[in-house]
């Protein structure tokens, strides 16, 4: 099994305005895959489709080698899921919630759950409904990890949490991943957070996957170039030109994807010159990518 999640030609419609159409997505096994996108881009819907919580109109979904939604129960027994909103029974205490969850998961690991309970400093007798947002986030992560999943699907798990809680939750996640080599599929719009530990990145907007590449390639491949004497219509460049803007005089700023250093030769061949190659961090690259996707020609 080379991919933990494989989505092929997925089609789903919610209401009259939102649609996921012809979505193809692959999450390599063992990867930490960051699923980026602005609010309302379709990240949560894609996750719910991948786990069989929603039924697609068309397409094929395979998770951990089994098809979804046909084999959803079998797959879900091996998947730790942290949804966007806390959804647990508010009247059950923390301890009762653990017991409830443990009854459904054959691989539930009590010693690990107890360790996380102490590590997260959660009060056992506190009802879920009375926990703070940070405590709820910790408990959700605890539940996902204690079932010893092969795949963790996390839908904005740290959204709205303070930095201390966020660090606790993410470090528990990374501990687990380093021990078990589990696959992580984590959605977020907190770009800088994903930058630190993801090795793959997928960007979604308006129900479509704009790009899906290894993190290094994304970070190293998106550049801002300062170009002199560029022709009005460059002839088949070896990179993807995302945007070009006039700077001053004969100088322009180009935003490009799939950039490699030897490509400066291309500019010499068209009579232009590269004055400067500026690195973008993930957040800048993400923003520029979205901007060019939404208005393709600048």
């Amino acid at each position, binding site marked *: 099994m080379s991919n933990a999640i494989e989505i092929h030609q997925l089609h789903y419609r919610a209401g009259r305005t939102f649609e996921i159409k012809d979505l193809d997505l692959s999450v390599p096994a063992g990867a930490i895959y960051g699923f980026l996108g602005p609010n309302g881009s379709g990240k949560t819907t894609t996750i719910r489709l991948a786990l069989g919580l929603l039924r697609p109109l068309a397409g094929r979904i395979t998770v951990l080698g089994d098809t979804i939604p046909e084999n959803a129960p079998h797959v879900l*027994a091996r998947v730790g*899921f942290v949804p966007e909103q806390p*959804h647990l*029974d508010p*009247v059950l205490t923390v301890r*009762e919630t653990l*017991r*409830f969850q443990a*009854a*459904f998961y054959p691989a539930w690991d009590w010693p690990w759950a107890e360790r996380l309970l102490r590590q997260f400093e959660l009060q056992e007798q506190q009802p879920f409904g009375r926990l703070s947002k940070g405590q709820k986030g910790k408990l959700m992560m605890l539940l996902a990890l204690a079932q010893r999943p092969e795949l963790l699907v996390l839908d904005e798990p740290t959204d709205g949490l303070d930095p201390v809680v966020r660090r606790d939750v993410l470090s528990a996640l990374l501990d687990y991943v380093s021990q078990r080599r589990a696959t992580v599929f984590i959605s977020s719009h907190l770009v800088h957070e994903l930058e630190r530990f993801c090795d793959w990145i997928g960007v979604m907007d308006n129900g479509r996957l704009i790009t899906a590449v290894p993190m290094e390639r994304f970070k190293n491949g998106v550049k801002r170039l300062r170009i002199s004497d560029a022709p009005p219509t460059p002839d088949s460049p070896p990179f993807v030109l995302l945007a070009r803007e006039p700077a001053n005089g004969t100088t322009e700023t180009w935003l490009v994807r799939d950039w490699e250093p030897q490509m400066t030769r291309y500019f010499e061949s068209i009579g232009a010159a590269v004055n400067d190659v500026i690195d973008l961090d993930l957040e800048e690259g993400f923003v520029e990518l979205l901007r060019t996707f939404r208005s393709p020609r600048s």
Partner: protein
Amino acid sequence: MFRVMLYSQWKWCRLIVVLGSVAGFALPLVSVQGAARADSSPLQAGELLQAVQSWGTLYPVLAAALGLLVAIATWAPDHRGRHVHALSLPVPRWRYVLLRFGAGATLLAAPVIAVTAGALLAAWGATIPAGLQGYPVALAIRFALAVLVAYAVFFAVSAGTARTAGIILGLIGGVILVQIIAGVANIDLDLFGRLQVVVLNWPGPLAIFSGRWMLIDV
């Protein structure tokens, strides 16, 4: 799995179940209160039957109320969480629904047992005039069936979305509207009467609720 589901539902339903059990236990005893007094002469058979019958109208009401409230409480945690937790558990959906249904039905055994105990105690302690007999077991079985029917109906309705509720309310509204229009147009159409016959008369689905609920009868 069933045990944790039962416990979860107990936390949501305990007040309903406890109050329903107390009411269920008290109802048969109260209905024969006059006949059970040791210091007064036994009521005449007719008066006793009348008293038992008037209290008896409360059994189907109690059964329906218990079915409704426990059904609503059964789905409450899932509705609150928009069913995300339920759907993400590694069990087939039909099995999850059965677990929920079974847990609620098990909790409803408490008021049924309370009615049985109350009816047995009332029948044993009452001074029953000649020609009349106590039917505590029959009453308890009927109550159990009525509770189960009410619970099943409301469980199915509560399982639905707001859209389902809208469809049901729309149907009821449609029947009322047709009846009003028929009345205004002087058309001889008694939809409610017909519905009542279809639903509440044997073999209608809610026939168990109609008729006399008698702890003591001829």
